[in-house]
């Protein structure tokens, strides 16, 4: 522990010395009497200086929590010598908030250890560490103090809260594996597709006997097979527009977690591409393990400032499989991500852009020039949206507070009437 002496001790010693010397020099006992309490305080300060032996153990009641959950942190303090005053401070990263007193000062007896409870509110998703705690032990008059960092840091993963979605976007194409998505192609399945003439090799069980009797020739039923789909969540992490504790990146991560959760539940394969200053990806896979991997990777999502020109060429081909539905979540602020999305569309990917609107987080300003700039900025965004729509890419604006369901429904409506044509 690092020992710190109060500067007041030196002051008292100095004042006592000054008083005694002055008293001796001028031969006045009052000055000695004046200095005596200070001399006594300095002497008491020396007596009180004894190194404390303090141990602290930090525990968190769980390692994983959801946004908005309460987590309990316990700090157990023990000292065989006791301590008149122990100041305990639990440093917390942004996104965690302690509801009780932090820091707090307690007295510690030699006989019994003390347990301090810290109820933490997880205000934001993220991968956090709780601890170590900063402790400062002081004597009763605060003449000496000893400071140290005690207890091991404990990990705490706060997962983003998942929005309940009623329906998901259906991709234009399905993959070859069995899933819950009705394929547009024909094959073995449950859903009736059409009737056609019997061809050698058709199974007898597929013959539609009623239709065959009516038409006088053998007809068979065709079905739509149930297949899985590949979904790639494309997160634009170049910029994050924030206002207080809310920002576009928070919305992006929350939406991505919700979508991944539901698509994986449907037995689809889901991958993630985090496209920003730092590019990362997760290859599309299915299953619960993939959900955990996606959520864990989302927790690491952050904005890394970079001026490097980046295109989708930096991504490995396997991260963007053919016929995959690419669902981009972007505030459409960085030219690099806007260009990359158009590039994806040009390469024939089934692309949907959910524009995580930065508008609610931007203050338009008050001066005429500010307002003009704001209007120009809004117009440039409109122009960008028009470019996407011209390319056959549905773009929907999603603002904070609006249900993601509404946005997805809007995309479905768009795709009902405007379907991209394959060259």
């Amino acid at each position, binding site marked *: 522990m690092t020992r710190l002496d*109060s*500067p*007041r*001790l*030196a*002051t*008292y*010693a*100095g*004042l*006592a*010395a*000054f*008083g*005694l*010397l*002055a*008293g*001796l020099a*001028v031969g*006045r*006992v*009052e*000055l*000695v*009497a*004046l*200095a*005596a*309490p*200070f*001399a*006594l*305080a*300095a002497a*008491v300060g*020396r007596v009180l200086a004894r190194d404390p032996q303090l141990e602290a153990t930090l525990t968190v009641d769980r390692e994983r929590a959801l946004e908005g959950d309460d987590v309990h942190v316990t700090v157990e303090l023990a000292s065989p010598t006791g301590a*008149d*005053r122990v*100041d305990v401070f639990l440093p917390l990263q942004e996104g965690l908030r302690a509801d009780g*007193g*932090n*820091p*707090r*000062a*307690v*007295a510690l007896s030699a006989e019994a250890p003390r347990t301090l409870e810290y109820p933490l509110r997880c205000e934001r998703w993220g991968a956090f560490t709780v601890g170590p705690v900063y402790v400062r032990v002081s004597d*009763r*008059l*605060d003449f000496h103090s000893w400071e140290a960092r005690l207890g091991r840091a404990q990990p705490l993963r706060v997962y983003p809260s998942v929005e309940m979605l009623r329906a998901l976007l259906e991709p234009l194409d399905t993959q070859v594996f069995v899933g819950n998505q009705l394929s547009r192609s024909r094959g073995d399945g449950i859903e009736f597709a059409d009737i056609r003439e019997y061809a050698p090799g058709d199974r007898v069980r597929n013959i539609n006997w009623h239709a065959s009797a009516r038409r006088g020739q053998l007809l068979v039923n065709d079905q739509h097979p149930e297949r899985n789909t590949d979904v790639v969540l494309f997160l634009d992490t170049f910029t994050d527009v924030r206002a207080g504790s809310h920002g576009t990146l928070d919305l992006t991560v929350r939406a991505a977690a919700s979508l991944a959760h539901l698509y994986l539940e449907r037995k689809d394969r889901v991958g993630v591409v985090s496209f920003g200053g730092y590019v990362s990806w997760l290859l599309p896979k299915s299953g619960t393990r993939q959900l955990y991997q996606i959520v864990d990777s989302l927790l690491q999502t952050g904005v890394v400032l970079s001026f490097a020109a980046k295109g989708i060429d930096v991504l490995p081909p396997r991260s963007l499989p053919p016929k995959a539905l690419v669902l981009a979540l972007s505030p459409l602020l960085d030219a690099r991500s806007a260009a990359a999305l158009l590039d994806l569309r040009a390469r024939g990917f089934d692309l949907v852009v959910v524009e995580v609107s930065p508008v609610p987080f931007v203050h338009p300003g008050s001066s005429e020039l500010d307002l003009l700039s704001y209007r120009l900025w809004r117009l440039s965004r409109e122009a960008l949206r028009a470019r996407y729509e011209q390319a056959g890419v549905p773009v929907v604006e999603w603002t904070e507070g609006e249900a993601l369901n509404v946005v997805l429904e809007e995309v479905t409506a768009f795709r009902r009437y405007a379907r991209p044509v394959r060259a």
Partner: protein
Amino acid sequence: MTLAAVSAALYAAVVVYAATRKPPIAVVAIGLGAIGGLLLLTALVRRVDELLPASLAFVGIVYAIEILARGSGVDDRAPLVGVALLLCAELATWSLDERWSIKAERAVVVARATAVAALALAGLGVGALVLALAAAPIGGGLLWTVLGAAATLLVVAIAARRI
């Protein structure tokens, strides 16, 4: 806030006491006391610990000037003045410590208040003992002067080591 107010009140009480005992030097005493008081207030309001020793030194000088100006006769209240200054310093420091807004449990506050009170009482006792010993008819002379000087030098040496 209360601690700072009590500290400032004790400071003012000592300055007023020193100024009113010898009217001819009242202007000097109040002037120096005001400078010290300003330093104390600055320390308390702006949270500058470094100004505390200077403010205490100023009030000490005011009291010393008053003692010298008065000439003969011992001031029986000197221990009280010493304790008032010690309490002023302790309470001001305590007030400055509160700036960190650390939620302290009652036992900690009570323990410190008790310790400060005990220190003040002990200081009063030591000061009174000094005056009592000075008044005791044990004679004078070179031997006592040398002993007194040696004791003073010893205390100053310890204090210097401390600093």
